């Protein structure tokens, strides 16, 4: 692995010297995500493998290019999991890519997102210096939390080489229910349940049907089913897997219509039904609203802002409107300062998050 690191070092040093952009890439399962792809590919897949995994410490440390298939296999042998349920995209998605993109799946509503599980990261910055941030322990307040800053940074601050992630045991019991409900009813019900001590681990409303998953101790799941009613969800594992992998029926045909974009609106769970043209699918207890629409970015963003959230053009559509929600000027200034600090020559994934960033 030392020779791989050496190659990374040389390429980054030379890219910085010549100010030529590099495009960090694992298996390319999320090439469609983000603003634009620029620069020569810097392939991370050669830097792969689990470095340390001790189930009793609840931590796995892996090199960026390690596939989620490999990590998933190691964890399931010990009956543990990546609790934030990232999309695996046929198992090819890499752990570096998941941390860089910050994508989480259905269980996010119950346990938190990628950044909540990132304990440490090793970064190669624009000067090709290797730096360690955070660690392998769950509580660590020594220095600023740079490893969480890197999470979701779309590779714009440097090359993430290694990450340490907190893992959790798989739940003892899991059951799923479904309810026929309008969107309005579903949103209300999800928020009412959210305030009760119920082992809710995922939810999905689409097309008049609300599906929920309960995970935890057998007794807790049994008691919740009694309380909540509803019907058993058919083929529950397949259902949640498909949702996690963005293969749920809602996601079908997203890229067929060029005019149509798939938007991800991140809003407070209590936000009312959003009055926007198009089809919606709702996860995370109401906090994540997927929208397939031809509505304008300005209209979508105005609606998201009005309820206190933001909107991302997740897939397809016209990216010239800006994939990620525009930043407040003072916040943008801080972004720029951080970018200049870690990547002074602007070589890492330029334009992937924001134009000119």
């Amino acid at each position, binding site marked *: 692995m030392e020779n791989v690191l050496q190659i990374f070092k040389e390429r980054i040093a030379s890219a910085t010297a010549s100010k030529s952009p590099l495009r960090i890439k694992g298996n390319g399962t999320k090439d469609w995500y983000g603003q634009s792809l620029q620069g020569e590919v810097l392939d991370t897949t050669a830097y792969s493998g689990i470095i340390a995994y001790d189930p*009793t410490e609840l931590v796995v440390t892996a090199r960026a290019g390690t596939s989620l298939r490999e990590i998933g296999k190691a964890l399931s042998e010990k009956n543990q999991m990546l609790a934030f349920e990232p999309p695996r995209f046929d198992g090819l998605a890499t752990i570096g890519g998941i941390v860089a993109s910050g994508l989480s799946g259905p269980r996010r509503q119950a346990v938190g997102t990628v950044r909540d599980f990132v304990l440490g990261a090793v970064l190669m910055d624009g000067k090709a210096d290797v730096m360690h941030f955070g660690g392998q322990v769950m*509580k660590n307040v020594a220095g600023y939390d740079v490893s969480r800053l890197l999470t979701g940074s779309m590779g714009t601050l440097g090359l993430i080489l290694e990450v340490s992630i907190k893992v959790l045991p798989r739940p003892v019991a899991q059951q799923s229910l479904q309810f026929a409900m309008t969107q309005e009813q579903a949103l209300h019900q999800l928020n009412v349940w959210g305030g009760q001590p119920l082992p809710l681990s995922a939810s999905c409303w689409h097309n008049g049907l609300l599906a929920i998953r309960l995970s935890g101790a057998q007794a807790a799941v049994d008691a919740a089913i009694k309380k909540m009613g509803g019907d058993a969800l058919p083929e529950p594992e397949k259902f949640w897997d498909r949702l996690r992998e963005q293969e749920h029926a809602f996601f079908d045909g997203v890229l067929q219509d060029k005019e149509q974009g798939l938007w991800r609106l991140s809003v407070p769970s209590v936000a009312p039904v959003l009055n926007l043209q198009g089809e919606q699918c709702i996860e995370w207890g109401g906090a994540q609203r997927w929208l397939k629409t031809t509505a304008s970015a300005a209209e979508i963003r105005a609606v998201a802002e009005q309820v206190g959230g933001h909107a991302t053009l997740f897939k397809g559509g016209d990216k010239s409107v800006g994939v990620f*929600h525009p*930043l407040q000027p003072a916040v943008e200034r801080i*972004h720029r300062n951080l970018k200049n600090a870690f990547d002074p020559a602007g070589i890492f994934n330029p334009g992937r998050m924001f134009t000119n960033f």
Partner: protein
Amino acid sequence: MNAKTEAAFTLSRQHEVVNALRAVLPAHSILFNEEDTRPYECDGLSAYRQLPMVVVLPENEAQIVDILKICLRLSVQVVPRGAGTGLSGGAMPIADGVVLSTARLNKIVKLDPYARTAVVQPGVRNLAISEAAQAHGLYYAPDPSSQIACSIGGNVAENSGGVHCLKYGLTVHNVLRVRVVTIEGDIIELGNAALDASGLDLLAVFIGSEGMLGVATEITVKLVPKPQQARVIMASFDDVVKGGNAVANVIAAGIIPAGLEMMDKTSSRMVEPFVKAGYDIDAEAILLCESDGTAEEVEEEIQHMTEVLNASGATAIAVSKDEAERMKFWSGRKNAFPAAGRISPDYYCMDGTIPRKHLAKVLLGIAEMEKTYGLRCANVFHAGDGNLHPLILFDANQPGEFDRAEKFGAAILELCVEVGGTITGEHGVGIEKINSMCVQYSEQERDAFFAVKRAFDVAFLLNPDKAIPTLVRCAEYGKMHVKRGELKFSDLPRF
């Protein structure tokens, strides 16, 4: 060590700053006479003191904006301060600087039980949030042991934990949004009422930044449903290693306890006469293992935990029968600090975190250090997440003892880093552990931290000289101590 610190600023400078502040603040919000500023000379780490030049007590965000603009214009260094309960000297004043207390911003702006969030000002006490949410069956999960007094603004600055964070997370996992005033007087929103925000995760960087990036003026926290029931198991072990293994076995069995705490014999003997919690004072280690949830869930989990603890060699096991007994079992652990104060004139609390598998090695190392430094040490341990609180007992009135206690503490932290851990799990670096940062981080890493600070605080005026040591400081410290590259176990991933 408790000698009064001297004022170290010129009167003309003080006049200049006070006069400028008078233009934007009422007189009662500006303190500059020694009898008024004296109470602000230290935080919970009273061994480190400095009399500040001026203390300001703003009552709203607009005043904070004005104060910071003035400080920027006059190049005055600012130390933000919450309730002053911090244990690392993070709020220790700067001699010719201003202390900005957020104590008067103490309102709960909005509590929304339907959305399960509370919007609060930074001076609101941690426990006050849970008290306000109680009527709705909700609470704010992070529970640092100072929760009766510490403020949420301080919790954000330190990324505070508590005894339940293995299951419920730290401050960073329970805060959705922080509204911040920068040194330039800009108001920025980090995070929002949704679960994530656009751009880089500046919220995560701000939390735990020890008042060095900006001043929080409003915080949105998550509230979670209060578990219907909680019960705790008290287990005794005749060997600390067995106790440590029992913790690993509980986790390996797929259980995430609501709380998982360990105390060594010195600690249980220290607290038992004080609180009469019923601790087995002959045990080498006592483990408290808590389950919470519905009655059925707790029943099932307690049974499972009991089996694992028995199989791990527990010599005695008691399960709390009711809430009163649960509180009694916890009382010893929760009163470990005051108990230390009772048996020893002074104590020094450390806060390293280690991978749990190295517990035996670290405890053995600490036992050796007790001989080296000629001081006793009691160990209480957030065992579930590896956060160790060695309490070094000393008497500051004995010449040289404080010095030895400090060296003892630094040696413990170096051992924590050596086994792949960190110098602070939840108390922060502040001024106290700043030298130990040289052991944990390389020069490039420390430079990166400085760059993060400058990205927010371009003028380098907010709580400077805390948390991140300069190259010069590390060079001085390095003369006496090994640097990271020369540590043993160089094959361990160390970050």
